[in-house]
C-alpha cells in the first residue's frame, strides 16, 4: 500500500498521443510512494469543445467523473492534463458558486455530484503534497549537459481564482521541482506564452508562429530542452517543430520533454520505461547521465581548482575596504 | 422580492453608529434596494450590544436579529467590537442548543463606506430568516 493514494484521471490524450506522459507519471509517482487509482468507467472530461457549446453540459461531463471519485471516497483527484484539470475545476467552481447551477447539472447526472472533490494537477501534487525534499532524496543521476526551459502553458495556473495554484503570472513550481531533481533550469520569460493550442487544425500558420516564439525564446535563454506539463503544448512544440522550421525558416532541434520524464531520468529509470523513445525530437544527446557520486566528485574538483583564486580575491577586497 | 413583500417578518438590527449605521446610510444614499423587514436600533458600538438584547428580541417576537459593527481593528472605540465578537459568538453557539435556529441570529462587520455590502447583508439575512419562517411559538 502506498503512503498516499489519489484518484487519478489520465484523460484521453494520455492514452494516445501523450502515452509517455502517463507512463512517466506512473513510474515517478510509484517511486515517490504515491498510489494512483483510476475511477471505474471514467468518461470524457468535457475538454475544450464542450464548454464552447454549453456550460451546463460541459460541467455535467466533468461532474460525472467527479461523482465517480466521490464514490471512491476520495476527496482529491489528480490529473496530469491541464485541459482536463480546467474542466474539473470549472465545474467545481460553478457548482459550488451557484446552487442553481449545481441543481441544473445534477439533473443531468445519474449520480448527483456533491462537490466534495478537489482537483489538482499532478504537478501540484508533486510540488505541494510530495515536496521538494522527497524528490531530491530520490535523485540518483545527474544530467550535466542538460539545461531546461520550463514551459507551463496557459492554464496550469490561470485564471488564478479557479486554478488556485502557483503564481498566475510567473509560476515557479516546475522550476523548483526540476531543480530539486538536479536539473539545471534556465530563466525563461515565456513560461506562459500561448503555444497555439488547438488551432493547429484550423490555423496552422498561426500555431507555427506562436510555437516559433516559444522555441526561439527557449534557445535564446540558453536552454537545450523544453520541459512541459501539457500534452497539447508538447504536441505543438515537438510534433510540429518540423512544420515551424519549414514555415519560419528556422532550424530548431530542441527536445520537448515532460517534466515527469526528466524526473524519472534523474531517478535512474530507464529511458524506455519513461517513453523517451516516443518523442519526435530525440533527447538522447542532452540526457547523458552520470551518477550523483560522480557528479559530486567533479564538482569538488572544480571547486578545489577555484578556491585559491577566490581566497586571494577576497583578501584583496578586504584590504581596499579598510 | 415578492416572497418577502407578501409576508414580512420581524427582524431587529443593532447597528453601531460609526460604521454599520453609516454603512446603512451609505446604502440608502446609493439607493441600494433592500427588503423592508429590518428595523434598526442605533447603538454607539457593537460592544454595547448585550447578548441579552438579542435574546429578549427573539423571545418577545423577533424572527431574526442582526448585529453589525465596525470591522475588527477599526472600532471607533478601539476594542468594543473585540468584546462583541466574543460575546456574540458565544450566543451564536448557545442559541441552537436551546432549540433556536442559529440562522436567526447573525453578527457581522460593515464599515461606513460599504453600502453595497450592507445591501447584501440585509438581503441575504432577510432571505435566510424567510426560509426559516416565523419564530416558533412555545
Amino acid at each position, binding site marked *: 500500500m502506498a503512503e498516499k493514494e489519489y484518484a487519478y484521471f489520465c484523460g484521453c490524450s494520455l492514452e494516445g498521443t501523450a502515452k509517455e506522459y502517463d507512463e512517466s507519471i506512473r513510474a515517478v509517482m510509484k517511486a515517490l510512494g504515491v498510489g494512483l487509482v483510476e475511477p471505474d468507467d471514467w468518461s470524457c472530461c468535457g475538454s475544450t469543445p464542450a464548454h464552447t457549446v454549453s456550460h451546463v453540459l460541459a460541467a455535467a461531463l466533468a461532474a460525472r467523473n467527479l461523482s465517480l471519485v466521490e464514490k471512491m471516497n476520495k476527496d482529491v483527484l489528480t490529473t496530469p492534463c491541464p485541459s482536463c484539470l480546467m474542466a474539473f475545476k470549472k465545474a467545481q467552481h460553478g457548482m459550488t458558486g451557484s446552487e442553481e447551477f449545481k441543481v441544473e447539472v445534477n439533473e443531468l447526472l445519474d449520480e448527483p455530484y456533491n462537490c466534495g472533490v478537489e482537483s489538482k494537477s499532478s504537478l501540484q501534487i508533486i510540488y505541494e503534497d510530495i515536496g521538494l525534499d522527497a524528490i531530491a532524496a530520490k535523485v540518483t543521476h545527474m544530467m550535466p549537459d542538460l539545461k531546461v526551459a520550463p514551459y507551463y502553458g496557459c492554464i496550469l495556473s490561470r485564471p488564478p481564482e479557479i486554478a488556485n495554484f502557483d503564481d498566475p503570472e510567473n509560476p515557479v513550481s516546475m522550476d523548483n521541482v526540476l531543480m530539486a531533481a538536479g536539473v539545471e533550469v534556465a530563466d525563461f*520569460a515565456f513560461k506562459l506564452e500561448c503555444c497555439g493550442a488547438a488551432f493547429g487544425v484550423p490555423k496552422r500558420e498561426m500555431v507555427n508562429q506562436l510555437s516559433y516564439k516559444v522555441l526561439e525564446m527557449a534557445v535564446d535563454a540558453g536552454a537545450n530542452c523544453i520541459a512541459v506539463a501539457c500534452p497539447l503544448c508538447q504536441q505543438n512544440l515537438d510534433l510540429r517543430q518540423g512544420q515551424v522550421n519549414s514555415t519560419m525558416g528556422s532550424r530548431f532541434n530542441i527536445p520537448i520533454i515532460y517534466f515527469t520524464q526528466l524526473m524519472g531520468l534523474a531517478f535512474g529509470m530507464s529511458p524506455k520505461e519513461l517513453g523517451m523513445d516516443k518523442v519526435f525530437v530525440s533527447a538522447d544527446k542532452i540526457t547523458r547521465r552520470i551518477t550523483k557520486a560522480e557528479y559530486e566528485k567533479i564538482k569538488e574538483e572544480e571547486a578545489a581548482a577555484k578556491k585559491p583564486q577566490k581566497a586571494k580575491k577576497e583578501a584583496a577586497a578586504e584590504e581596499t575596504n579598510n | 422580492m415578492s416572497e418577502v413583500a407578501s409576508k414580512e417578518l*420581524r427582524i431587529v438590527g443593532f447597528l453601531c453608529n460609526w460604521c454599520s449605521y453609516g454603512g446603512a446610510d451609505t*446604502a*440608502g444614499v446609493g439607493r441600494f434596494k*433592500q427588503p423592508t423587514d429590518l*428595523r434598526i436600533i442605533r447603538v454607539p458600538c457593537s460592544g454595547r450590544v448585550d447578548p441579552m438584547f438579542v435574546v429578549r428580541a427573539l423571545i418577545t417576537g423577533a424572527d431574526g436579529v442582526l448585529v453589525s459593527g465596525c470591522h475588527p481593528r477599526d472600532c471607533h472605540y478601539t476594542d468594543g467590537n473585540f468584546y462583541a465578537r466574543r460575546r456574540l459568538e458565544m450566543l451564536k453557539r448557545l442559541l441552537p442548543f436551546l432549540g433556536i435556529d442559529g440562522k436567526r441570529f447573525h453578527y457581522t462587520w460593515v464599515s461606513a463606506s460599504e453600502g453595497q455590502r450592507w445591501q447584501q447583508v440585509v438581503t441575504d439575512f432577510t432571505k435566510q430568516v424567510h426560509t426559516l419562517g416565523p419564530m416558533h411559538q412555545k
Partner: protein
Amino acid sequence: MRVGVFICHCGSNIAGTVDVAKVAEEARKMPGVAYATAYMYTCSEPGQKEITDAIERDKLDRVVVAACSPRMHENTFRRTVMKAGLNRYFFEQANIREHVSWIGLDKELNTKKAIDEVRMAVEKVKRNKPLFSTSFKVNKRVLVLGGGVAGMQAAIDCADGGLEVIMVEKSPSIGGMMARLDKTFPTVDCSICILGPKMVDVAQHDLIKLHAYSEIAEIKGYVGNYQIKIRKKPTYVDWTKCTGCGLCMEKCPTKNAYDHFNFGAAPTRAINIPFPQAIPKKATIDPEFCRQFVKGKCGVCAKVCPTGAINYEMQEEIITEDVGAIITATGYGLMGIENFKEYGAGRYPDVITGIQYERFLNASGPTSGHIIRPSDHEEPKTIVFISCVGSRDKSLGVPYCSNFCCMYIAKQAILTKDHIPDSQSYVFYMDIRSPGKGYDEFTRRAQEEYGAKYIRGRVSRIYPKGKKMVVRGADTLLGTQVEIEADLVVLGNAVVSAEGAAQMAEKLHISYDTHGFYVESHPKLRPVETNTSGVYLAGACQGPKDIPASVGQGSAAAAKVLALFSKDMLESDPAIANVNINTCVGCLKCVKTCPFQAIVEDTLRNGKKVAKVIETVCAGCGVCTSTCPCGAIQLQHFTDNQLLAEVNAICQK
C-alpha cells in the same frame, strides 16, 4: 409626557415612497404623543419654526423628527428643541429616508416600516433623560503627524495663527514625497525650489517644534487634552553637535546601504544625509548596513567627525507632549514592484518605478540628473512608461485610480525629451485622467510638442531580449498587438496607504477603509474632519492626492484647528457612562473591559466598593453597560431601558 412627532416629506425623497400623512396619523395614536404632523422640509427654517411653535403651543416636552439619518441632522434638531427651551437630549430622530424611503420599493411596506421607526423613536424619547455638558479647558497646542507638504502647510498655518505646533516626522528629514520630485506638473517648476522655502519656514518658526526621525508611541486622551508619547529613534549621531558637513558620508566605507530617500534607485552610505536641502540637515546611521553594527568594527565616521557627534551607543528616547488637537498628514506609499509578476517583479534592473525615474531626473539625485539604464549605466533612447500599474486593478486589491500618475508620466515624458533630445518615449495608458487646471493641456503638450507616443492599452508582458526589454501590449485603438523594444521601462505603480497606516489609525481611534486610507467624517461636507473629534486629516493619508490638493487640505485642517481653539473651554459629550452606586455590587468587571481605562474602583464612606467613571476619559462606547451584570452602570442616552423600549416597540407578540 407630551411627545411631538414631525414627519418630514423631504420633498419627494420621503413622501415619494412613504405615505407621510398615514405615518402622522398613526403617530397620533401612540401613547404619549400629543401632536403629530407632516411637513415638507422639516430641516428648513420654517420647518424648524414649526417645531418650536408646536413645543410652545402644545406644551410638548419631547420631540421626534422622522426624516433623514440622525448622522445628518441630529445636531440641527437638537439645537432647534434647545431654542424652544427643551433639553437637547429630549429629541430623537427616526431615520425614514436612508433606512426606509430610499431603499424600499413598496410604498405600503415602507409606510409600515416608517410607522415602526417612529414608534421606536417615541418609546425611546419617552425614556430619555435631560443630560448636561460640562466644560473643560483646551490645551491649545497641535500635533502635526508627518512633515510632507500637507503637514508642513498645516503646521505653518497653525503657527502663523499663533498656535504652538509639534511636528513629528518618521524619516530623518521633512519634505516628504515632494522633496524627491524633480519638477512639478503642469508648470514644470523645480519642486525643491518651491518646497525648500517652506521647509525652512517650518525649521525656523518660533512656534513649531520639530521631532524628526521620530514616531508616535502612544496617544492618550481626548479632544482638547491629548497626551502624546513620541519615540525618538536613535540616529547614532548627536544632532546638537552635527553640523551637516557631510565628511562622514564621504568617508563611510559602506557603499551599498539601501537609500530610502531615493527608493533604492542607487545605493548610499551607511551614514548619510538624505539630500542636500534636508531639514534638519543632520546625518543618520543606518545600523542595518553600518559596519560598526554589522561587524562590530569600523568607527571611521567617529574618527573623521570634526565635532565628535557620533555616538554608537545612542538609545531610543521617549518624550511626552501634551496637545489639544492632531492633524494627521502621514502621506502615502507605493505598491512594491514585486507585485507585478508579468513585468518581471523586480527581476529586471531596467524596469523601474516612476519615483526612481524621478530621482534619476533630479540634479541632486544619484546620477546628478543624468538618465541612465541601471543595468549598464548607458543612456536609454527608447523609454516606455506604463500607467495604471496596479491601480484600477481589482486582482491586486487596488480598484481605485491613483490620481496623479497620468500627470507625472506626462511630465516625465516631457523631461525625458529635454534630457535626451534624440529619445523616444512611449506611454501605455488606460485613460488619460487630467481634470485639473491646465492639466489636460499639459498631457497634450507631452504628445504634440514633445512627441511622446501614447498607446491606449495594457501591457501584458515585459521580457528581456539581449540588452533590450521587450514591452508587449495591446493597442486597443488600432486593435493590434504592439511590441516595443525599450531601453528602459518606467512603471507608474499604484499609490497605496502609507506603511503602518492602519496601526496609526488604531492609535488615533480613527477609521480607515479597506485600503488603509483614513476615512473623513463626511465625503463632501466634512472632508478634513474624522469621526474622532480633535483629529483632522490632510493630504494623501485620506486618499491619493496631488500637491495642490494636499496643500489645500493642510490649510483646511489648520483652519479647523484654529476654529476649535478659538474657544478656551470645550463642552463634553454628556452621553457617557454613569454608575448607580446603590445597585453597584463592586465586582468591577467594567473596570476590566473599559477600552479607555475610564472606570476606577472607588470606596464609599460606608466602606462599600463601587465603580466610578472618570467623566472626561469616558468615550461613551457602552462596553461597561453590557458587561455589568446588575445594570448598575448605564451609558446615558443608550441605557438598557432606552434600548429595551426600542426592542419592545417592535417586538410584541
